């Protein structure tokens, strides 16, 4: 660090130079105009998705070998911090996994990796978990995801719930298979709210002024804005979006909203910054177990959102073969059960339910109670009837439609 006694240093730091000639110099920008037109950004895909070429799978996987290690990017609160499933994987296959909880929200994740994937550069991860939604479609349309080789996924084929193969966002599971599903609802601290919460309208209750949290993700936020007005997101129109946006703006302008959150909402409700917030189902149970809080989660009467987080392999992954092996490992019934027991999100393997019941029967005391509760919970193993109140994110046919949706809701979050 330069000595503060040194007048030269101080002079250097405080010097500034300016003059008329300099101002005129700056205005000589005509050459710049020509350069402007020469720039452009190459896109890597088309927004109207086309089916992948039939030999895409063979082409991608040809010649690829296992390397004995892989880097796995995931969301927080999607695995026991002791990582028992990964340890079992390493014991069974000898492949080491570097697990990083670096994904907090879909939009920033896509924006972060897009320049590297567009430049055909590795993003440092071989496996990632991405939510179905706008960015999922952008990943697929940009050609950033590797097509999966189902011949190497026997556990998936055998154990996954059949409904997942028909999901509209990835029919036939060409690029992804589910990691878990989840429900967006309301979480609240009964000690602070002093009454049970059952409706979306409660998020607009002035009694909770300054203590309400909402998601900053435009799809999550928009959905709740529409559902509270009784609009079904699946067939919503731009006018509906504007009405929902106005309703959300009301919530903000009246001072009821404290802040828009990403994953960090769980910290905020844990330390009392908010009393009631939009939330993801499993997070709350994990928080109660790890920090001893007494938070409650509820699917609102007007409806909640159902989404699926999916395993995906980026096209520039250096260790895709090991990534594929790990994906299949998670579809072993005992592993799927162990994961669901900790994260308490919707399990894609129906047979795990019986396994959890068996585990509950063998356990005692509090463990037995919580395992039994998980086995029967509609938040982990929903049945047909449970789906009636749940809605998906709005699907967009064109990029223009999607941009209109985002520009309706973004100013609310950013303003």
């Amino acid at each position, binding site marked *: 660090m330069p000595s503060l006694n*040194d007048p030269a240093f101080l002079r250097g730091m405080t010097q500034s*130079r300016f003059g008329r000639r300099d101002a005129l*110099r700056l205005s000589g920008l005509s050459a710049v105009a020509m350069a402007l037109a020469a720039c452009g*950004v190459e896109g890597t895909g088309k927004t109207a998705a086309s089916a992948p070429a039939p030999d895409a799978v063979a082409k991608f996987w040809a010649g690829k070998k296992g390397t004995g290690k892989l880097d796995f990017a995931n969301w927080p609160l999607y695995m026991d911090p002791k990582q028992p499933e990964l340890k079992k994987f390493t014991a069974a296959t000898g492949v080491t996994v570097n697990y990083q909880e670096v994904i907090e929200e879909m939009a920033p994740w896509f924006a972060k990796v897009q320049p590297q994937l567009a*430049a055909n550069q590795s993003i440092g991860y071989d496996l990632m978990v991405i939510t179905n939604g706008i960015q999922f479609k952008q990943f697929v349309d940009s050609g950033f995801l590797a097509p999966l080789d189902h011949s190497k996924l026997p556990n998936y084929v055998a154990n996954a719930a059949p409904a997942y193969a028909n999901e509209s966002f990835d029919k036939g599971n060409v690029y992804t298979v589910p990691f878990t599903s989840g429900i967006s609802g309301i979480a609240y601290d009964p000690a602070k709210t002093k009454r049970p919460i059952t409706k979306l309208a409660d998020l607009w209750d002035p009694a909770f002024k300054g203590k309400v949290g909402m998601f900053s993700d435009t799809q999550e936020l928009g959905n709740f804005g529409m559902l509270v007005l009784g609009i079904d997101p699946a067939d919503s129109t731009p006018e509906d979006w504007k009405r929902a946006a106005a309703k959300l703006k009301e919530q903000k302008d009246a001072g009821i909203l404290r802040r828009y959150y990403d994953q960090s909402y769980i910290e905020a409700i844990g330390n009392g910054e908010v009393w009631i917030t939009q939330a993801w189902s499993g997070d709350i149970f994990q928080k109660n177990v790890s920090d001893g809080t007494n938070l409650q989660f509820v699917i609102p009467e007007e409806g909640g959102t159902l989404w699926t987080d999916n395993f995906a392999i980026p096209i520039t992954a250096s260790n895709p073969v090991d990534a594929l092996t790990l994906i299949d490992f998670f579809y072993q019934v005992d592993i799927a059960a162990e994961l669901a027991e900790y994260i308490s999100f919707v399990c894609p393997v129906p047979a795990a339910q019986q396994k959890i019941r068996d585990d509950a029967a063998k356990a005692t005391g509090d463990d037995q109670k919580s395992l039994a509760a998980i086995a029967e919970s509609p938040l982990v193993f929903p049945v047909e009837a449970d789906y009636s109140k749940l809605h998906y994110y709005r699907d967009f046919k064109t990029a223009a439609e999607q941009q209109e949706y985002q520009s309706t809701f973004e100013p609310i979050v950013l303003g």
Partner: protein
Amino acid sequence: MSRFRVSGGGVLRAYTWLIIAWLALPVLVMILFGFNDTPGRYNQSWQGFTFKWYGRLFELNDLTKALWVSLGVAVVTMLVAGALGTAIGYALGRYRFRGSGTVNLVLFATMSSPELVMGASLLTLFVSTGVGLGVVTIAIAHIMFSISFVAVVVRARVLTLDRSVEEAAADLGANPWTTFWKITFPIILPAVFSGMMLAFALSIDDFVVTNFTAGTTTTFPLWIWGATRIGLPPQVNVMGTLIFAVGVLIAVVSSVRARPRRAA
């Protein structure tokens, strides 16, 4: 100097100490919570004193990796920006030439441009040329904004250089190359060194520009930023404390050495 002391020197002294304390408060909190006996990442409430985190400093692999990336980039920045900036600073201080005004203007612009705009524009460059993002683009960015700081420091020193020493060397038959390396450079070396230290400090602490040019690579400030959502582990406090201590040590040592020697 005592002739124009405004009355109330005591009040001003107290005020100055208050400001110093206010500035130091978050640093003290940071150092303190590096000793917190907390079970894990939830480092919000005080739970008892312990040294254990100093032993478990490198437990979090990605944090350690981020620290190494930061240090590596800072060293490269210090060396490259140090060289490029010294050359510019020397040229501006020593010579009068056409175009020096433009160069000065560009230096001023780099120093006073908002970091946000510099980072964002670099992102647009890298996206338009399709080169991707990573350690290389981070280093490029850091070197870019450090050059002007080094140049300004060196220029200020070179401006006050006593030419007579150089002239004496020339009179004794030395060519300009020899004169520079044997006479001038040792004299301006402290300023060059100051500039390099400045570049190192700017690089290791940079957040805004790095945020735009890093992609999935993480540096120490970026790691901290990302981790605040889940909770900062005590290792961050410990690393911050250690970096702080090292910085203070270097500053104290260099200013002790810079003190003029007493006449024998």
